[in-house]
């Protein structure tokens, strides 16, 4: 109930902007949405990088099964990698943690925690988030969740190893790492709930005068819908986590049916539970969750495209309605992940239909974004390159969702690398590219400096090349019937033999992709210190964040005085205007 005793001391404390804060208050336990945004950004980028590193180890095992990991093999110790050879136990842990970390500790905190926190108050002309203390609390609960997840690697028996989906009974029987995973998830869920509440209140209550709903930048709309998904979908996993904790700690049988026989022994539990109950609860969260991974990306792409085509978005309203509809629909498609669990015709027909329906709003948004390019005066700078690449990459990911959404075609494709390919195209060259676009685009707002175009373009082209090298072959393997989560990459199976050689290609590309991130990391830190100094509105943009005087550091409270909004978000190339952009607050 932190909600109740919110922000009173804060508002009092900062009523006068001269009042100076100590180091801790200012940089560590800060209540300023911009500082918290930056905290989120760095933590989540590090987690992204870590999650990627786990996968690079796995890709070695997939490319060269049973071969000792060069040099780094040692770090896993004798229990999990004797002589540097990764054991299946370890592979399963890395797989489960890669998924968990990438989704819950990497992309969501970056897309919502970092971009949302930093930009939403600025774009709606607010002095801060509605509940600054709550904001701080949600970052630190996220942090705790992250620490727990990392710590779980040191739990007896290692980290969670039942996939990021943690299907029982397997997860019930798994080692202590699974319990830590559950506590970690609880922390992350609470963090998201606090955060999403905060976002919704902020957007509803703190919009600057004149900033009507249809004048909101599309990015804000995306964050708004995202927050509702987090707020209403996460509790389902919260419930599931509580039930599984009961099972694991108090010996209940929520997910354990009667008559289980594990390795020859009848399991001593009361039984009477249902393994499918978990799947329903999990996917009720996890499907909306995947749209949480993409909606903020849509938002960023829209901002970057409008700015770099120098014209308004085409069909802004239809885009807004689409993502609202998409948000609603995402609550009733979850069982398309469960077609193979013995589903009758009624259920399968319902979920196939909703799944086909939910693909339409995405089509509308993508189409609107592409048509927005028509008639523009397109500038191909680094953020724009990432934004443009996002479109066809998301298209591949999205389109491959269709055969998965039809139950009969899902029979052959379910739990194969086709699925892995599908969703990585939407989250990696999709969302991650959008994140990069956002970082390059708003960096000048954060630091008052611009990032190097040369390194940026190098980063883009190499990443683009390698990321397709990683994920394109997955469709071939998947169609050939190669299952996911295979420790030896399928080499035991004869039906996989014809496509096995792709494993090496994919792994090489993955490591190449890692190298391709060096220009970015260098660029990021170099530009902070030495990047070319630029003005408040480097991109000649129209939305309010560019009206605020730029950091470092943006004065607390963001605006000298709250601007009054008089026009829509994207008045670029307005006929008769002296310059090719008219900010939202300029008459």
């Amino acid at each position: 109930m932190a909600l109740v005793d919110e922000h009173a001391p804060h508002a009092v404390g900062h009523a006068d902007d001269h009042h100076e804060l100590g180091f801790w208050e200012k940089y560590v336990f800060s209540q300023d949405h911009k500082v918290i945004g930056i905290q989120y950004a760095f933590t989540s980028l590090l987690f992204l990088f870590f999650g990627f590193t786990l996968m690079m180890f796995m890709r070695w095992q997939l490319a060269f099964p049973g071969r000792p990991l060069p040099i780094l093999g040692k770090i896993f110790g004798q229990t999990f990698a004797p002589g540097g050879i990764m054991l299946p136990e370890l592979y399963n842990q890395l797989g489960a943690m890669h998924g968990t970390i990438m989704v819950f500790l990497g992309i969501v905190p970056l897309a919502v925690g970092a971009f949302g926190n930093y930009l939403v108050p600025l774009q709606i002309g607010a002095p801060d988030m509605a509940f600054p203390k709550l904001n701080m609390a949600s970052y630190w609960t996220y942090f705790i969740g992250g620490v727990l997840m990392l710590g779980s690697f040191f739990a007896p028996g290692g980290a969670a190893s039942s996939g990021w989906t943690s299907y029982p009974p397997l997860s019930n029987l798994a080692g202590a790492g699974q319990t830590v995973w559950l506590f970690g998830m609880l922390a992350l869920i609470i963090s998201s709930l606090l955060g999403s509440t905060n976002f919704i209140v902020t957007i509803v209550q703190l919009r600057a005068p004149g900033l009507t709903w249809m004048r909101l930048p599309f990015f804000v709309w995306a964050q708004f819908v995202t927050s509702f998904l987090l707020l209403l979908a996460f509790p389902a996993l919260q419930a599931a986590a509580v039930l599984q904790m009961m099972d694991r700690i108090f010996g209940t049988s929520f997910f354990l049916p009667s008559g289980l026989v594990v390795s020859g022994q009848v399991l001593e539990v009361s039984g009477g539970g249902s393994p499918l109950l978990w799947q329903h609860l999990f996917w009720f969260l996890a499907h909306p969750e995947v749209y949480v991974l993409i909606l903020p990306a849509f938002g960023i792409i829209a901002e970057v495209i409008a700015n770099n085509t120098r014209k308004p978005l085409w069909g802004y309203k239809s885009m807004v309605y689409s993502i609202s509809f998409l948000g609603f629909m995402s609550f009733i498609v979850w069982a398309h992940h469960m077609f193979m669990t013995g589903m009758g015709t009624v259920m399968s027909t319902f979920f196939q239909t909703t799944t086909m329906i939910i693909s339409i709003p995405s089509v509308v948004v993508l189409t609107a974004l592409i048509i927005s390019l028509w008639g523009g005066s397109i500038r191909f700078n680094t953020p724009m390159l990432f934004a443009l690449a996002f479109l066809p990459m998301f298209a591949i990911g999205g389109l491959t969702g269709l055969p998965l959404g039809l139950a009969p075609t899902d029979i052959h494709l379910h739990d194969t690398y086709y699925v892995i390919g599908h969703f990585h195209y939407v989250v990696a060259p999709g969302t991650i590219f959008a994140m990069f676009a956002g970082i390059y685009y708003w960096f000048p707002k954060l630091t008052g400096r611009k990032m190097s175009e040369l390194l940026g373009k190098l980063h883009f082209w190499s990443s683009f090349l390698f990321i397709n090298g990683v994920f394109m072959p997955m469709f071939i393997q998947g169609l050939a019937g190669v299952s996911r989560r295979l420790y030896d990459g399928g080499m035991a199976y004869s039906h996989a033999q014809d496509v096995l050689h792709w494993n090496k290609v994919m792994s090489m590309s993955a490591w190449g992709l890692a190298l391709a991130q060096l220009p970015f990391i260098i660029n990021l830190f170099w530009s902070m210190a030495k990047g070319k100094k630029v003005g408040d509105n480097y991109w000649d943009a129209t939305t309010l964040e560019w009206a605020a005087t730029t950091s470092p550091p943006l004065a607390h409270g963001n605006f000298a005085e709250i601007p009054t909004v008089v026009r829509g978000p994207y008045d670029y190339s307005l006929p008769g205007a002296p310059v090719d952009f008219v900010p939202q607050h300029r008459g």
Partner: protein
Amino acid sequence: MEIPYTSETRPDTGLYNAKLGIWLFLASEVMLFGALFSSYILLRTGAPVWPHGRDLGLNVPLATLNTMILIGSSVTILLSWVSLRLHDVKKFRLYMGLTLLCSLGFLVIKYFEYMEKIHHGHLPSFNTFFAIYFTLTGLHGLHVIGGMVVNGYLWGPGLKLWHKDPQRFTNRVEVAGLYWHFVDLVWIFLFPTLYLL
């Protein structure tokens, strides 16, 4: 710069921030208990036989008493807010105090109920019924304790704010009240589901 609408309401939405906040928080709480109730239904419909709470020795009279107590506390917390609106701090403390006593009473009774079960060896692991019984009532109990902490704070140290900013303090009491009504409501669903049906 002050954050707007912390105590005064925003004209076009007719809300102050914390009020919208609590409604959203409660929405997610509804989803949480909704998910658990759905689980209950799924498990019950899946079970060959499902025991009746009272046959398993759930104490209906005690639970009924507890229901009365919680409903009472919902009334008193409402009155405590009303008395603030009438600028009567004494009455506020009285009613908020009563609310706290009620919640305490509720927990004590629940404690005895739990002990009874445990003595009969009816632990969560005994069967699916007790599993869901302990999970739901336990989670509800945690919500009661959470509410007591907040109410206790408002009754005691939190009262300072009244003298600085009565409007915001009144808002906090209202928000705390909304939460408390929810906790009450959850129990009103739990009681028949577990004890009677």
